[in-house]
């Protein structure tokens, strides 16, 4: 087993990883920026190193400082969490060159799956259906028009290096495609330093369904079922649940099997999430692989009883997965709500500030993953997510009721949060009746 791990992240995921390390008898080293110097979770770490100023570029994204911190604290490996450097191939490569373990996939698998064009090619190779689209990047406007006319509008333009909803444009006709193409390309070049664009058919009103996979170095790859993350606002997930309420046993098996084929073909190791769009006819299309642990992983932990962070640490320590697929059981329903410091009444503008009153929910079936406490100042420098509330019940109706009760208990003052927005969604009859898709939030709120 690894004996000492550095966590190259902050906030709730840093705390989540510290907890998993300690349960496995691993020492945890935290790194922090000057903005996070008073974070309570730093006291839970066995050691904490200040690595830079509040701006992420000088701290949580600064590779030399993080590697130096790993060297002076003599750790075996680095856990990147999610965001920041988690999907940075250069970082993973530097860790490898410095003889420090990277708790994530091998560099080659990351390179292959991190590039969406390559990942789609791989999916086609293992007969996993992809959204109809360009075979590779689109070279010019003429090629884009030709292809769009062939597959029919609407189409979506995406940056090859993009993610998290950035660098995407939906186009409904030839005229708007003409103007959108060069704009999308310039935007991608500016945002990601890579102007490669690809084009896909735009699936109307799909659900977002993703499969959690874990693979070991011996080539065993198992899935931990799916999560439905259709409740999104501007491609940012707000509420996630498992199981996906519209899949039957056969659909579920096909979906998971597709994810496993892809992961095996990439010689992947450690945690991955394979994302799909599910259309109205229950046909699923591969979109991308996230080569890291995800924000919404607790949903899967609740329904399977497996601690995914501990699995990441065990696999990085060289452990093999010793049970078979049938050994992983799905129990009940779990729902997660992301609580962000954003004002739903003001177009979800971020609301940094000091929290003077903080009372988290509790009671049966409720889990809260958060690094926040009374007196904590939400910094303007980082992501606005301050807590995740997860509930686990036998049925979806019970889970919704528990979540509503928990969110009503949750006090975070005086800053604005997304709690009222989540409550509105949970009370909406279409959500309760389970008739949602990725456009649900934008259409109804």
């Amino acid at each position, binding site marked *: 087993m690894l004996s000492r791990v550095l966590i190259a992240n902050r906030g709730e995921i840093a705390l989540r990883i510290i907890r998993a390390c300690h349960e496995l008898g691993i020492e945890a080293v935290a790194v922090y920026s*000057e903005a996070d110097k008073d974070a309570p979770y730093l006291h839970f770490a066995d050691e904490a*190193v*200040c*690595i*830079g*100023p509040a701006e992420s*570029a*000088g*701290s949580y*994204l*600064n*590779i*030399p*400082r993080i*590697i*130096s*911190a790993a*060297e*002076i*604290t003599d750790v075996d490996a680095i856990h990147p969490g999610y965001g920041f450097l988690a999907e940075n191939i250069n970082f993973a490569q530097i860790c490898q060159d*410095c003889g420090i373990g990277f708790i994530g996939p091998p560099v080659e698998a990351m390179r292959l799956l991190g590039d969406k064009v390559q990942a789609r090619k791989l999916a086609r190779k293992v007969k996993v259906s992809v959204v109809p689209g360009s075979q590779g990047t689109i070279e010019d406007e003429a090629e884009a028009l030709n292809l769009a006319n062939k597959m029919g509008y609407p189409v979506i333009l995406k940056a090859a290096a993009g993610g998290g909803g950035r660098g995407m444009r939906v186009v409904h006709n030839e005229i708007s495609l003409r103007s959108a193409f060069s704009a999308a390309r310039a935007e991608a070049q500016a945002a990601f330093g890579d102007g490669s664009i690809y084009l896909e058919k735009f699936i109307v009103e799909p659900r977002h369904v993703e499969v959690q996979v874990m693979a070991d170095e011996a080539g065993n790859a198992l899935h931990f079922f799916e999560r439905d993350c259709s409740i999104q606002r501007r491609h940012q997930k707000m509420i996630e649940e498992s199981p996906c309420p519209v899949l039957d046993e056969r659909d579920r098996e096909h979906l998971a099997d597709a994810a496993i084929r892809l992961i095996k073909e990439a010689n992947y190791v450690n945690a991955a999430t394979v994302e799909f769009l599910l259309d109205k006819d229950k046909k699923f299309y591969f979109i991308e692989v996230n080569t890291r642990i995800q924000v919404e992983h607790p949903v899967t932990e609740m329904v399977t009883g497996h601690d995914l962070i501990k699995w990441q640490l065990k696999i990085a320590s060289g452990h093999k997965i010793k049970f078979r697929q049938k050994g992983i059981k799905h129990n009940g329903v779990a729902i997660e709500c992301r609580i962000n410091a954003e004002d739903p009444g003001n177009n979800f503008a971020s609301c940094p500030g000091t929290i003077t009153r903080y009372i988290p929910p509790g009671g049966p079936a409720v889990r809260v993953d958060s690094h926040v406490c009374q007196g904590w100042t939400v910094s303007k420098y980082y992501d606005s997510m301050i807590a995740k509330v997860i509930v686990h019940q036998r049925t979806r109706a019970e889970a919704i009721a528990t979540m509503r009760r928990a969110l009503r208990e949750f006090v975070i003052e005086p800053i604005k949060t997304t709690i009222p927005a989540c409550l509105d969604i949970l009370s909406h009859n279409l959500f309760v009746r389970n008739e949602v898709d990725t456009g649900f939030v934008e259409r109804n709120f």
Partner: protein
Amino acid sequence: MAEKETDLIKIRKILEIMKDNDLVEIEIKHGDEKIFLKRSQPQQPGVVAVPVHGPVAAGADVGVGANNVQLPVKENSVAQQEEGLTEIKSAIVGTFYERPSPDSEPYVEVGSHIEPQTVVCIIEAMKVMNEIKAETSGTIVEILVTNGQAVEYGQVLFKARPD
């Protein structure tokens, strides 16, 4: 004119090397020619180029090799304290060394006089020895770290009494 164009090409090439290797500061000496380039932050594109011509004065700061990374000490890291002392802080995470080699004299001791360009210590980060300059002038009155100690960002290394 021709000479200037050659310089520009040279500087552009060095900039490429800096960007590729995420270097913040680079100093190259070749005969009488000295080029010193400094970028504000590894991720930021802003680059200040200062080509220096003419003979290098004897006793000018010891050359920082082309492969060295040196992070700039931020202005606000040399803060004026209540007791009138200036703090010299670490802008890098790494291992502190008080002398250039085990059998050399320390760069500075209590009582040493420093100028902004005086090298006060070395901090090793990612196998690179970074010479840390005082960036202030005065007299060293306190050394707060010991040889071989790990230091973090913003940690106070020295206190100096300004002239």
